[in-house]
């Protein structure tokens, strides 16, 4: 069998690679996205006090520590049987909305956006944040940096620290906010709404105004008909902080709706011999391999799948954009992977509107932000929607609150199987009869997985940490017949 290897992460030697396997005729037989994975976190936690988890787990990842912090804190609520006070709940969701808006902004402008704003066919050297700025104007860069600065500043003011918050406690949070800070948060939130609207307008002008881009979004090469997962509120609308998990099928029909604590009844993990990764799938449907369709339990947990799984958005401007997305792309649900970028912007608008809604509520500054737990700890599940997928923390303790078992299902994990599907389809479009691999293959594969905003155990940022690509074409006997590389030293 011929083998093409794309290694995107040289820093983690031997751990991160995309392998595209060809059949004897030179056609793509399968594609595997093998990712670097940090080992032993769950084991590392056993024997520690459960209440340390919000401050331990937010160090797993430097990209979304706020998501881990709140998932851990919610798991402690359940573990210690301590329902957070209404003010604490609102304050947590306000904090989380600010984080979400900041995170989605970064992805759109710095990471995913370059594919569209600069253009999928632009030279690689221009497809970065500098290319984006060149295209949309220098003043936009200032807006992006201000949005990030405001977000990080407010997260630090509420959560106590600039990067990893140290604030969540079972039954609430360690401190509330003053009414003066609430007013500041509200004022910046109103600016954030305008920024989100501006971002959607930019997407409208640059992407939707270009028939070629719309065609690319809707192309079969970037389409998978998987189940869609997301958290919904009591009215079935998207919620990032709390609610029930809803899964809809390829036609938008509900197939599952469950409390996050029941996840083990509905989600199983497939172990494949060729990778140490486990592929989550819907138990009810079953594992049929790395394929999409109704018979395959493969699901997606992304901004787009959250929109698919919900009845709508809980804020008015985001709802308008939600309706426009589905009207433009042919109705609900949408299965076009690249539409995830658009869905992310709809979520950005929702996050900023929710930020304003919550900051407008005086109760968010109420001093009663903690119910002190009194019950014996047992077991708890905490779940939030992380920017890149549903995030679940599950802890078991003894009666002293010492952890005996820990299980985490992180956002990107949910999407392992669909990412592999996307890479395979991207490769299938460009490899036929053993044709020479071109730079276009790298671009297309990168576009496919970047839409998921994947995060692979990014806690470590040791240098050099670039994301080079390496393609090695091997003949059936293992001999390297061609090698393409990008960004390797």
């Amino acid at each position: 069998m011929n083998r093409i290897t794309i290694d995107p992460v040289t820093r983690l030697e031997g751990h991160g690679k995309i392998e595209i396997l060809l059949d004897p005729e030179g056609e793509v037989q399968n594609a595997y996205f093998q990712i670097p994975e940090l080992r032993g976190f769950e084991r590392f936690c056993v024997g520690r006090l459960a209440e340390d988890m919000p401050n331990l787990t937010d160090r797993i990842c430097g990209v979304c520590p706020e998501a881990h912090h709140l998932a851990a804190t919610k798991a402690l609520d359940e573990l210690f049987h301590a329902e957070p006070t209404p003010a604490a709940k609102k304050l947590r969701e306000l904090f989380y909305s600010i984080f979400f808006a900041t995170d989605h902004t970064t992805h759109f402008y710095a990471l995913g956006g370059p594919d569209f704003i600069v253009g999928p066919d632009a030279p690689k050297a221009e497809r970065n944040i500098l290319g984006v700025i060149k295209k949309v104007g220098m003043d936009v860069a200032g807006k992006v940096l201000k949005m990030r600065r405001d977000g990080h500043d407010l997260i630090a003011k509420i959560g106590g620290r600039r990067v990893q918050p140290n604030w969540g406690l079972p039954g609430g949070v360690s401190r509330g906010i003053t009414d003066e800070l609430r007013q500041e948060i509200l004022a910046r939130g109103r600016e954030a709404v305008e920024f989100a609207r501006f971002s959607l307008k930019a997407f409208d002008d640059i992407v939707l105004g270009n028939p070629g881009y719309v065609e690319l979004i809707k192309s079969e090469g970037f389409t998978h008909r998987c189940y869609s997962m997301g958290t919904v509120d009591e009215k079935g609308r998207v919620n990032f902080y709390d609610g029930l998990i809803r899964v809809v099928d390829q036609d938008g029909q509900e197939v599952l709706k469950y409390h996050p604590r029941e996840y083990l009844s509905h989600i199983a993990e497939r172990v494949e011999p060729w990778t140490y990764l486990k592929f989550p799938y819907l138990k009810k449907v079953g594992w049929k391999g790395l394929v999409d369709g109704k018979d395959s339990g493969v699901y997606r947990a992304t901004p787009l799948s959250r929109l698919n799984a919900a009845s709508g958005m809980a804020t008015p401007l985001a709802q308008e954009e939600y309706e426009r997305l589905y009207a433009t792309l042919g109705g609900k649900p949408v299965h076009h992977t690249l539409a995830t970028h658009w869905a992310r912007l709809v979520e950005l608008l929702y996050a900023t509107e929710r930020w304003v809604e919550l900051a407008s509520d005086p109760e968010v500054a109420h001093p009663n932000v903690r119910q002190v737990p009194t019950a014996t700890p047992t077991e708890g599940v905490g779940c939030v929607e992380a920017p890149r997928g549903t995030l679940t923390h599950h802890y078991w303790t003894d009666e002293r609150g010492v952890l005996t078992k820990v299980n985490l299902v992180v956002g990107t994990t949910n999407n392992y199987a669909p990412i592999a599907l996307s890479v395979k389809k991207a490769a299938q479009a460009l490899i036929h009869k053993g044709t020479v691999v071109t730079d276009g293959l790298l671009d297309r594969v990168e576009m496919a997985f970047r839409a998921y905003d994947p995060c692979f155990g990014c806690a470590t940022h040791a240098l050099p940490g670039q994301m080079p690509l390496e393609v090695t074409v091997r003949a059936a006997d293992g001999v390297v017949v061609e090698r393409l590389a990008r960004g390797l030293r």
Partner: protein
Amino acid sequence: MKTLVLGLGNPLLGDDAVGLRVAASLRGRLPPDVELDEDYCGGLRLMERLAGYEHVVIVDALVTGAHPPGLVLCLRPGEVETQHSGSTHDVSLSDALRLAAALGLPMPRLDLVVIEAGQVLEFDEHLTPAVEAAVPRAARMVLELVAAPPKCAGAAA
């Protein structure tokens, strides 16, 4: 001159914590006008963290596989990339610095004191022995840089 010494790393991830350990070892040993801090970030966030200083010394782990663990190097930006490498959710520091330049944001003179790491994939609160032994050497290099900033080059094995 407004100077910052910034230790970077994950305290739970083996040798990735070495930048934090070097920073901790420098407490009380830096001139009073030099700020000392710890952080976790790369790329854009790191660039934003640097704003407002004239000179910043970053201390971080390096994983090249080309050096023995514990080798201490002093590098300039551009000689090495930095970002959350397991994620697509960041840009490299050099891209972030280019963005700052394009926007006219004043960026400091930047020196990188890096220590080749051994183990950064397994959660562990301890450094490997070779990297542990490098902490005083890296700290000395930082002190020299703070005292005489404009000559960063070479290795301290």
